[in-house]
Structures are given as C-alpha cells and as structure tokens.
C-alpha cells in the first residue's frame, strides 16, 4: 500500500470505530488496536501509540459536552485520577518489558470482558445507607440534575474504588485504551455512584489517564505521526457523528452487533497471541 491508500483506509476504519464506539458507549479505542494489528499489519507498539492518542481526543471532545450537563463529579474524578495516572505510568513502563504476545492475550481478555459487561443487565439495590465517613471527608458526595429535580447521592468504598482505578490505569497504559468499562465498574459497582455520574466522570478521567502514559509512549517512539494522524482525525469525526445520532437511534441491536465484533476481534487477538503471531 502507498501512503495515500494507507492513510485513507486507516482514516475510514478509525471513523467507523469511533462512530460505533460512541454510539454504543463502548469507546472506539478498544477496537482500534485489533483493527490496526490484524487488518493493517501494524506493529503492536505503533498501534497502541496511535490508539492512545485517539483516546485523548475523544475523551476531551465528549467530556466537554458532559461536563456542561452537570453529571460528572470533578472531585471524585480528580481524587481517582491519582490512582489511574500512577497506574497508567506503571502500565506504560510494563509495555517495554512484557512480550507482545502476552500483551495480545491480555488485550483479548479485556476485549471479551468489555463485551460481557456491555451485555449484562445490572441489578441495582439502592438501599439508603448512612454516608461513608471517608467519602464525606473527601467531599465526594454530590448531586446531579434529574427528571424530578436535583438528586443527591452518597459515595462508598473509596479504597476499593481506588484500587480498581489503579488497575484500570495500568491496563490503559499497557494496552493504549481508555479502560472506560473498568472505570465505570469501579465507580458504579464498587463505590455505588449513580450510573450516569459514573459514565460521565469516567469519560472525563480517560483523557487525563491516557495523557499519563502518552508521555512515556512519546519518549519511547511509539507515537508515529503518519499513523496517528488518520487514526486521531477519523476517530474524532466518527465519535462526534456518533454523539449527534445517539439521541435518534435505537442502539440495542447496534450494541449487539458491536459486541459480536468485539468478541471476534478478541478471539483473533487471542489466537495471534497464543500462536506467536506478534513480535
């Protein structure tokens, strides 16, 4: 392939990934690395470098929209970013130490897990509990606009959430993804933060987490401008299109299709990792 063909095809593929990622709420980053490595035969390190850059673009772009709506909790986000950024730095450091095949297998597991999380219906038992003293001390309890006025919520299990966030950061740094699914699990499941607040705060945090490993990637030479350019522009346009259509479409069947795609990519990555297809 020549420069023009390659750039155009990568741009088009990234646009579709960004579009479906934002439409389904699963994020485009998670399919980008398999797309680049499996279909475009890009080396894993260049692929995660380009993916990570696009993650910063979509997170910052969409966070701008969410922050204004008043759902994201900036204090929770900032406190947990201590965990995600330190984790991300550690993950990025590991990328040079862990063999590519092992990274591919870990990636496959994360892909399959995020497909599973997106299919699962979440039973939530919201029983009123007294406020958690740690969360209160950290001024994390908040409120958000609801159909019936302002809804207040309390935050629980801060250390558990902090721990899961560290893992989410490490995976983000190791794999060049946003780890949005795991961040939501930490806040929604562990810390009992309302789902809407969890997803928007997670989105808000993804950019900062990714920036922590991007510096390491940059100094290692993982970020190639000629590859990252079409990926970033494609994902950005795709995800902006996704947020515009989001309100109008029925996303249920689309989520299913995208989950199937993720599972197939996960299995392909797993196979590549196990058979030593990556260097």
């Amino acid at each position, binding site marked *: 392939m020549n420069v023009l063909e390659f750039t155009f095809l990568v741009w088009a593929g990234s646009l579709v990934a960004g579009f479906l990622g934002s439409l389904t709420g699963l994020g485009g980053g998670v399919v980008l690395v398999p797309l680049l490595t499996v279909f475009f035969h890009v080396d894993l390190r260049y692929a995660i470098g380009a993916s990570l850059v696009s993650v910063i673009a979509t997170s910052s772009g969409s966070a701008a929209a969410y922050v204004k709506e008043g759902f994201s909790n900036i204090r929770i986000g900032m406190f947990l970013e201590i965990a995600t950024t330190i984790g991300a730095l550690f993950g990025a450091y590991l990328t040079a130490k862990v063999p590519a095949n092992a990274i591919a297998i870990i990636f496959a597991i994360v892909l399959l897990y995020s497909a599973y999380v997106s299919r699962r219906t979440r039973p939530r038992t919201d029983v009123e509990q007294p406020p958690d003293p740690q969360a209160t001390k950290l001024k994390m309890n908040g409120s958000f606009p609801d159909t019936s006025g302002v809804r207040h919520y309390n935050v629980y299990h801060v250390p558990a959430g902090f721990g899961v966030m560290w893992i989410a950061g490490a995976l983000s740094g190791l794999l060049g993804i946003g780890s949005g699914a795991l961040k939501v699990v930490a806040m929604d499941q562990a810390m009992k933060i309302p789902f809407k607040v969890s997803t928007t705060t997670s989105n808000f945090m993804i950019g900062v987490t990714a920036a922590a490993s991007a510096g390491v990637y940059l100094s290692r030479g993982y970020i190639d401008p000629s590859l*990252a350019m079409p990926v970033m522009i494609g994902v950005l346009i795709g995800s902006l299109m996704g947020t515009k259509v989001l309100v109008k479409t029925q996303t249920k069947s689309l989520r299913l299709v995208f989950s199937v795609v993720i599972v197939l990519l996960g299995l392909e990555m797993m196979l590549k990792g196990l058979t030593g297809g990556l260097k």
Partner: protein
Amino acid sequence: MTMKPLNDERVEGLIANLLRAGVLISALVVIGGAVPYLAESPRAHVDYRTFHSEPDNLKSVAGIIHTALSGDPRGIMQLGLLLLIATPIARVMFSAVAFAMEGDLMYVGFTLIVLAVLLYSLFGSFLIA
C-alpha cells in the same frame, strides 16, 4: 472585584471550553501537517510491520517543537499530537487553580499529585524508558 464568583458550575463551564479548544487546535495543527505530508510523496510505500522507534527529534517535547518550526510535515503533525496530550494537562492545571480559589487545599494537594505524575511522564519518563 468585578469578577463573577468561581463556583463549581462556572468552573465546569470553563473546563468544557478549555477541552473543546484544546482538541480543536490540535486537530487543526495535525491537519496542517497532514496536507503537506500527503502531498510530499503520496505514492511512497508504507510499512508498519516492524517497530523501529521514532527518530529522536520526534520523541521529546523540545525536539518536536524544533522539528515542527523547521516546517517538517511529520514534525507539524507530531506537534498537533503533543498539543492534544497537553490538553488534559492544562485541564488539571486549571483545576488546581480553581480549587485554590475555592480555598479547598485538600483538593489542591490531590490535583498537584496528578499534575506531577503527568509532567513526569511528559518530561522525565526517558529516565525509565
């Protein structure tokens, strides 16, 4: 003081605009490098199969700025990507100032820890890389 009080809502609005501006500016710079890059040698062969790291002038903040200013298309694209990486860092700096103006010293502390990690990654990570 004629300035509006810096409440949470106003801070959130400012953060949203900062993020939007950062992404827009970096995308424009990346496109500004992409046009001459694609025009330069559109028929050249590409191969990303093997990793051979980027040249030194595209790996450090100082090197990227220098290369971009010399008009090199790949340098300009890399500068756009660097601006994109800097956007969340600017957001964290802004948060530190906002928390300080609210008098929330505990959160100023937390924000500065995050900022230190980010700046270390961008400027000091070659020590471990």
